[in-house]
């Protein structure tokens, strides 16, 4: 059994918007999976379910053995806090807190706010010297690296990223993707939504969504490391 299991999962908004339609999926620990597909195909919806920010209309979602379909909001928050690191397309940093404080926020809600550790995490993403800067003083790529540091700080089993390079230029995209590569090498499980086939190919496995359904994909994992 994998780290993430989806069994006949559907997510229906309102009466008839089938954002996800009867999906079954298994993702093993340490895997890097990219989720691809056209706009509106249900990629973010899937990530939301796995990220414990929503529950499925039908079917079962299991994270690390826990069936989250039946959990209430508070319990979902707990699973998310304990097991998942999130990286967003729009960065999402608290604007009035410095880079290091933004990392500490995640620590704070998880357990303890340790400034030392937060600074180390920033060093890991190459921002050791920018810890005291506010988000608006950082470039987009740097902001995204702060987000990655924040996603890593509590040692989550799973890192979920929704188009983490969607707002970045080529150069910054490469820096961020290198980071994900590193994380993968260190054994993190990664699920990444992307529009860019080149980015998608970095993963060991690609999941193609179309109108909420899984499209058959050649399960060949390409040589990794194309980008760097």
């Amino acid at each position, binding site marked *: 059994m994998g780290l993430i299991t989806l069994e006949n999962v559907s997510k229906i908004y309102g009466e008839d918007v089938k954002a996800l339609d009867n999906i079954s999926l298994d993702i093993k620990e340490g895997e890097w999976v990219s989720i691809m597909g056209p706009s509106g195909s249900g990629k973010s919806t899937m990530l939301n379910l796995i990220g414990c920010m929503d529950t499925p209309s039908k079917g079962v979602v299991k994270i690390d053995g826990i069936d989250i379909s039946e959990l209430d909001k*508070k319990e979902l928050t707990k699973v998310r806090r304990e097991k998942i690191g999130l990286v967003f397309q729009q960065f999402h940093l608290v604007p*009035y807190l410095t880079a290091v404080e933004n990392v500490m926020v995640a620590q*704070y*809600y998880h357990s303890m706010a340790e400034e030392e550790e937060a600074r180390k995490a920033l060093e890991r993403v190459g921002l050791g010297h920018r810890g005291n800067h506010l988000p608006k003083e950082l470039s987009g790529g740097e902001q995204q690296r702060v987000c990655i540091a924040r996603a890593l700080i509590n040692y989550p089993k799973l890192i979920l990223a*929704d188009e983490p390079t969607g707002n970045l230029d080529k150069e910054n995209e490469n820096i961020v993707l290198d980071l994900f590569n590193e994380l993968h090498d260190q054994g993190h499980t990664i699920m990444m939504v992307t529009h860019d086939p080149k980015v998608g190919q970095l993963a060991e496995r690609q999941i193609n969504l179309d109108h909420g359904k899984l499209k058959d994909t050649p399960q060949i994992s390409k040589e990794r490391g194309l980008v760097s």
Partner: protein
Amino acid sequence: MKKLQMFLRMVGKAFKERKSRVAIAFFAIVVGVGIIASLFSVYYDISIKMSEELRVYGANLVLAPDLQAANKEMNIEQLDKIVNKFDKDKLVGYRPNLYGVAKAKAKGILDVKKPVVLVGTWFDQVDQVNPYWKVEGELLANKSVDDEVVIGKEAAKKLGYDVGDTITISVEETGKEEKLIISGIITTGNEADSQIFVNLSLAQELLGKPDKINIAYFSVLGQNLSSKVKKINKTVNGIELETIKKIASSEGKVLNKIKSLMYLVVMIILLSTLLCVSTTMMTIVTERKEEIGLKKALGAENSNIITEFLTEAAILGGIGGLVGYGLGFLGAQAIGQSVFDSYISFRIMIVPASFILAVLVSCIASIIPVRMVVDIDPAVVLKGE
């Protein structure tokens, strides 16, 4: 400990981020609490000040022999006994009177004698008990002056005397006669205008009633005088203390009216402060929706975020309350100076009361905005704008 540090760091920076909004809520609390604190400071003092002001209108208690008493006289020791029942600082003054009928020679060469009411009293108490007396010339300097007299304006007119004249007074029953210099003429607006006043000791001698008095007027401060009077009356025989109703009850009425007016004003101010803080907090929560969603996505529970907001509200309220109190106290002084011509005393109790009130108002005002926090979905952050 580190958790608390981080908590305070976040709360502090959140404040700074929204300076102008926070300033509006802060200002509302300062003004609200300031007005309330000054009202209460003034009100606490007002009852005392009111009594003092109303004392200008004269005595509020009268002591006389009760109905059963055969002659309408009492001994001066009985007066002393009553006097001892009052606190020294509550008793503004008291003035005994002994009445008798005498004859006064009218001015002129003819030997015309007219009957007058002769009153023996203490002139040093007039200021305290009858402050409204208008005196032309002077009252008698002390209790032992025995060759001077003060006469009422009507009596002076009837007999044709002026200040500085000498008047001859005689009492038929005792056959005593005395030549007295008129040191002052008084205008009182009541029966005293047609009476003639000498020192109590002289009157007792002329009327042959040593140590006797008929009545005594008291000017006493404080509330609940009537119950105090009842208590005192139970301890004495043959004499009775009574409140002079007119002043005592109008004093109470005025105070009650001020009190209800004050409560009304306080309610209105509290309500408007509440509204102002509440709408400001609402705006702040709305503006920070994305941040709240993000924090939830990072694992914050509703209770975490609610605590953050309520702490912000409490700090805002606490500081606002103290600043408000400070301004309120200054305001109270201004009111005290302009209305009562005196300082309003500092009451330590109003400081914590203002503080607690402001914290409560601020937190209560935040209840509705904070409930909006619960509805904010962490998924909002995953959706692009």
